[in-house]
């Protein structure tokens, strides 16, 4: 940005709302919108990346601040970044879901003493089942998590859902809510001190 801050912007579901937000701060994002192959826009201090990479760049200080989902921050809780603001958009629920007939998770726990859970969020899933006193085998998958219970790989899944549509189309239903995730503004700890004024101005305007 013109005031010397570099901001990590997430491509994907949060991309458009994030660029709208930057427009509102007077940043000209037209090139970012029109060129989806270019990643670094040095003149306006914007770098674009996958949401899961945002904490990595901000922790290292390659970006001073960044925007990403709370789901990403929960899964990467070891990252040393400051969480400054709940931006409110991109709301999703982190849920436990299972096939919509019977009670496969309860059945597995009663008869086998443990439940098998597929997820892209192994830490969030493991902590949720540990916190609720149930033994779980976590199976990390990279692609569509909904497939895993349909093929018998697991009894249930932990995933992020906005509308529940994808779950329903795959005959899955939400059985537990874990947390609500929204977009968050994060900052590098050193930049938070050494560029305090710029970061505060930005935070105040975003809070606005």
């Amino acid at each position, binding site marked *: 940005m013109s005031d010397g801050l570099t901001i990590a912007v997430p491509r994907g579901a949060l991309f458009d709302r994030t660029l709208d937000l930057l427009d509102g701060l007077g940043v000209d994002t037209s090139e970012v919108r029109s060129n989806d192959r270019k990643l670094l826009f040095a003149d306006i201090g914007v770098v674009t990346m996958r949401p899961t990479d945002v904490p990595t760049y901000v922790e*290292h200080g390659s970006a001073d601040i960044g925007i990403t989902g709370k789901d990403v921050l929960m899964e990467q809780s070891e990252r*040393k970044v400051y*969480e400054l603001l709940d931006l409110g958009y991109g709301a999703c629920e982190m849920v436990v879901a299972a096939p919509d007939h019977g009670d496969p998770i309860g059945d597995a726990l009663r008869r086998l003493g443990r439940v098998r859970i597929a997820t892209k969020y192994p830490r969030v899933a493991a902590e949720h089942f540990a916190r609720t006193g149930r033994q779980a085998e976590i199976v990390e998958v990279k692609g569509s998590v909904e497939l895993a219970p349909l093929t018998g790989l697991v009894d249930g899944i932990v995933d992020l859902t906005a509308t529940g549509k994808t779950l329903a189309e795959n005959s899955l239903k939400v059985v537990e809510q874990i947390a609500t995730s929204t977009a968050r503004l994060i900052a590098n*700890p050193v930049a*938070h001190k050494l560029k*305090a004024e710029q970061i505060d101005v930005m935070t105040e305007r975003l809070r606005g």
Partner: protein
Amino acid sequence: MTHPIPPGSRDVLPEEMRELRAIGDRMRAAFEGAGYGEVHTPALEYEEVLLRGDERAAGARYRTFDEQGAVLALRSDMTIPIARVVATRYAGAEPPLRFSYVARAWRATDRGAGEPREFLQAGIELIGVPGTEGEAEVIALTIEGLNAAGLRRHRVGVGDGALYRTLLASFGVAEEAHLPMLEALSRRDLVDLEHQVDALALADRDRDLLVRLPQLRGGPEILDEAPGVGGLRTLHDQLEARGVADRVIFDLGLVRELGYYTGPVFEVYDPAVGFTLGGGGRYDNLIGRFGRDLPACGLAVDVQRVHLAQAAEEALA
């Protein structure tokens, strides 16, 4: 065939070693020149002796046994061994005492977190000078030591580790609510902290202060916005007298993890890198746990991180 070394440790080859050695030597000379004599203590100590310094650090130590079955531990910093040295070797010496070190310490790390398991620290301890006078001397000498090491833009962050806890108590917040709030503060999860503050249903003025405090950082002007910071104001005056006030950032949300700090806490930054170079603070009860009641404060930087900052500064120049 690979012959691995533990993650978080590393081999240092000649070219890097020469540069690390130069940084250590220059800082050592700056410390010695200010009357801080260098000390060396054993890497392995009796665990029960180290635990007298700080019980909470116990989980972070590497342990082994000696021939008699006594538990030995690798030191995880130099402050506790120096507190032991002061109470035993200098039991009758007239304070103040000044010591420096360029020494290795070891801490357990989470696998894959990228934290070093073994690190080289350059630091100073000032024993027997209470209050802001001692803190100002330690901060000014650290800044000078880093000048000597070749950094130009480094800054020291200064906060008060007890401030937030004191405020919570003064607002009548129940003891059991403190810990989760202090944890959110130490992570600087300001979203979570604000939720927790809102849940307390305090008067607006108190609520706003608890939410704003962790965001108050900058020059001495921020000290006008919070109660209970008279000590930091005096410290600012003394730093000004020493000509280093413009290198210091007051940060009212700053807390450090180590359990023995009792007052002001410090962190060291360089704008070229996104991580802290080191830290320290005042620890007025630590030496007393070894039998000699003396106020003290100290500061240490990680030499390898100073080297990274210096290289990054060169790349920017």
